[in-house]
């Protein structure tokens, strides 16, 4: 264990430290509101298993099930639901010795890029509380950036781990689809999403990924794999169109390219003509799946129910009307629309064809480059409300992150520079099962630039 990890392994296990640690968390929480539930003792066992993460605390996005903790998904619909079971990924981390301390805020059911779509709490960016922490895993990213936990789990459906990681100045991994079990991850868009990691260092990110991956009998889409072990030599850097990025983000992007060159990587320029179809294809598929995945919330077996209903149909209608927020309703309606009989060929089927075209467009570059680089998001963390980016522009800005979800490949968001007091990250993408290539490059860059410490950050609780 590194000094950093050793320090963290004592946060919850030493009574004196725990007290000070709690106080540190409480102080930060008044500023950023990253947790929906924080209780380090609830799942702290007397005998913590020995493993690579023994004693290390972590937080879990509140759309991932942990027994005896709530599973609100940031929704009024599930505000009082307590999970009867634990997600496989969380179980795997607990087996590796990690200590689950709480559940973090998110955009309702993972739908959003700001965490402002949470029906339960507002989460602020630790670098500037006027700004969002990103989303939908905003709570996890803010908590890691503020030093409340050294790593946290998020879920990434269209960039929900990588974008907030970039906004908060920490590492954010979206693993290959199927490598980490989805059992226990509340479904939003099943064919796109994975459980991902937000962490303070590359090595922590890697350790956590290694501990939670693997085939799970509870998830038929999960699988084991052996990485190739290939050493990264060439980086394919996406050519950026004039005006596509905010100037600070462009500057940050360019300085990363310089660092890579200095570190001895061969740089080639790549183009992805299908990029302009990524967002429409993504939202067609994601909302279609969401319309079915969210159908189960009807107020009958659990979740929000109206005070009075005329009959079962009325009960379901009222539950959903009262329990869901506007963004969720919008996406469910959109998804229902694109799946209508007679319209499937025009929307859903076409989106699946585009998805294949995008995969081909991306994969052809792996002959020439070992890893691909592209931006995470066109802007740094934006302000709460829609003064900087309205909700439609936020969706359009998902193009760089959605690509990895549509093709299922692993991608990592890496802190790259500070621009006007805000962290900016850059994204790397690798062939399926080649997470290791991401960690290689990330470690090299980490020597030049480490995850920045937000004002007030420290790990010296005592």
């Amino acid at each position, binding site marked *: 264990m590194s000094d950093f990890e050793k320090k963290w392994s004592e946060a919850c296990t030493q009574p004196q430290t725990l007290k000070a640690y709690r106080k540190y968390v409480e102080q930060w929480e008044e500023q950023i509101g990253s947790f929906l539930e924080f209780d380090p003792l609830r799942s702290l066992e007397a005998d913590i298993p020995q493993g690579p993460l023994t004693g290390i605390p972590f937080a879990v996005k509140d*759309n991932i099930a942990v027994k005896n903790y709530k599973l609100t998904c940031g929704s009024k619909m599930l505000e009082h639901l307590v999970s009867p*079971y634990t997600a496989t990924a969380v179980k795997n981390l607990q087996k590796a010795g990690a200590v689950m301390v709480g559940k973090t805020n998110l955009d309702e059911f993972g739908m959003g890029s700001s965490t402002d779509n949470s029906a339960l709490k507002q989460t602020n960016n630790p670098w500037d509380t006027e700004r969002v922490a990103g989303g939908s895993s905003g709570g996890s990213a803010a908590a890691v950036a503020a030093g409340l936990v050294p790593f946290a789990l998020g879920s990434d459906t269209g960039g929900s781990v990588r974008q907030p990681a970039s906004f908060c100045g920490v590492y954010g991994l979206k693993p290959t689809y199927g490598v980490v079990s989805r059992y226990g991850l509340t479904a939003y868009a099943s064919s796109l999403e994975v459980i991902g990691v937000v962490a303070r260092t590359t090595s922590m990110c890697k350790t956590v990924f290694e501990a939670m991956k693997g085939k799970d009998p509870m998830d038929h*889409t999960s699988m084991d794999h052996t990485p190739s072990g290939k050493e990264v030599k060439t980086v394919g850097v996406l050519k950026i169109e004039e005006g596509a990025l905010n100037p600070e983000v462009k500057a940050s992007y360019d300085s990363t390219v310089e660092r890579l060159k200095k570190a001895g990587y061969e740089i080639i320029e790549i183009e992805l003509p299908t990029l302009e179809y990524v967002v429409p294809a993504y939202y067609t598929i994601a909302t279609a799946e969401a319309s079915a995945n969210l159908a189960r919330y009807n107020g009958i077996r659990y979740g929000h129910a109206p005070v009075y209903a005329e009959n079962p149909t009325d009960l*379901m209608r009222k539950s959903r009307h009262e329990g869901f927020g506007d963004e969720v309703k919008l996406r469910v309606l959109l998804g229902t629309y694109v799946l209508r009989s007679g319209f499937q060929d025009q929307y859903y089927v076409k989106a699946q064809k585009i998805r294949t075209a995008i995969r081909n467009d991306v994969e052809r570059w792996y002959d020439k480059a070992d890893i691909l680089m592209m931006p995470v998001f066109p802007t740094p963390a934006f302000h709460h409300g829609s003064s900087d980016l309205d909700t439609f522009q936020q969706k359009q800005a998902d193009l760089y992150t959605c690509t990895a979800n549509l093709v299922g490949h692993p991608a990592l968001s890496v802190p790259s520079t500070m621009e006007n007091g805000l962290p900016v990250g850059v994204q790397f993408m690798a062939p399926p099962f080649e997470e290791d290539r991401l960690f290689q490059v990330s470690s090299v860059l980490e020597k030049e630039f480490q995850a920045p410490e937000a004002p007030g950050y420290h790990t010296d609780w005592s």
Partner: protein
Amino acid sequence: MYQSFIGLEIHIHLDAETKAFCGCKAHFGDEENTNVCPVCMGFPGVLPTLNEKAIQMSYTVARALNCKLSPNTKFERKNYFYPDMPKNYQISQFAEPVGRDGYIDIEIGDSIKRVRIHDVHFEEDAGKMIHAGDMSLLDYNRAGYPLLEIVTEPDLVIGEDAEAFLKSFRRLVRYLGVCDGNMEEGSMRCDANVSINLKGAGLGEKVEIKNLNSSRFVRKALNYEIERQSGMMDEGKAVVQETRLWNENRDQSEPMRKKEDANDYRYFPEPDLPPFRPSEEFMQDVENSLCEMPLVRKQRLMNSYGLSSDQAEYIHEEKYMADFFEQAVFSGAEAVQVYSWLSSDVKKLLNRTGLSLEDCPLSAERLAKLISMIGDGQISGKIAKKVLDYIFDEDKDPETICNEKKLVQISDPTAIGKIVEDVLAAHAQVVEDIKAGDARQMGFLVGQVMKASGGNAAPPVVQSVLKEKVLG
């Protein structure tokens, strides 16, 4: 002057112990909401895991129905809101079902008819909603039961055809051991569609009929519907495409929903379940689980054992009975004798004890032995019935019972002569009457002798000894 077309959609519960996509017990009649877990209750974050035994049974049925089997069967989500459906979508199959384009030969009256099967697909059942006063109660025990839907082409003509089809199909799934075919408990359900048209004009507007809970209702409802539609055509009215509900109390169907109100199920591929590709070993297991089809068996019972059509019909109804029958014949009993015993005395005892042939103490060997003991003259038919009772009561072989109970036929004239003498002494007046010419009293004496012998005396011997002693 009209032509009618009937197609059936049959759902069967697969007897696969656990539910289709989770480990919960699939069992009828348990306390409400006890066979449930986060998966079948549709909790957030759960995923389906495919019950391989159930999918194997599905392939077995599809194979028995002569379908083309899918090498890559796929699952879809069928979306509609209903309170008893936990996820508000049903995992079903659409694009690539387990099997399609099959057929089954069924016997209708004296002729054999081939009914084409459109497809056989796997899906999950919903729970049950019960309305009680101003409340609606839900039981999710059945939610997620493995279900197989068999869709026929519209090859049937009248209600009687459909009834015959259901009986044949029920027999088939029982032979295969994949479903008990119990329509009352809902482990087999049937919906039907009917259309009529002028002869030669092809299919008409399709009307779907639901809530057919027995094969009798299927017959009645379909014949009612054919008549209803014919009446409309006679009056020059157009039949509209709709779904109707059979009301068994009123013996009539009632409109449920019009075509415009039909659900748009918005099928799309189930992202949580990869397609299932049966391995060679899996397909071998499917082949091994097949058996002789009921109709083939019936024909063989007639041809090989000389049973009549009715006798074979009775024997082949249950696979176990047919096996039992053949085993008894193999053990040396005569076929018609075995049939007689099975269809009368054994059947009565089974009804009385509530046992099935499978769990009762009578084995094919015991029945064969019993029959051979009658043939050998060791026991009379009457004693044999008693022995059968004892087999059921004491679970012992017929010889053991006869020895223990001294149930051996007395056919020795000397032994019988002694009993006869006692009876004659006790009924001197009757003997006088007979001698005076009242032959009718002879029967009374036979009865007395039989009674005195405990039923063990051989009646022909009793008669001849009596005749000799009374009339000289």
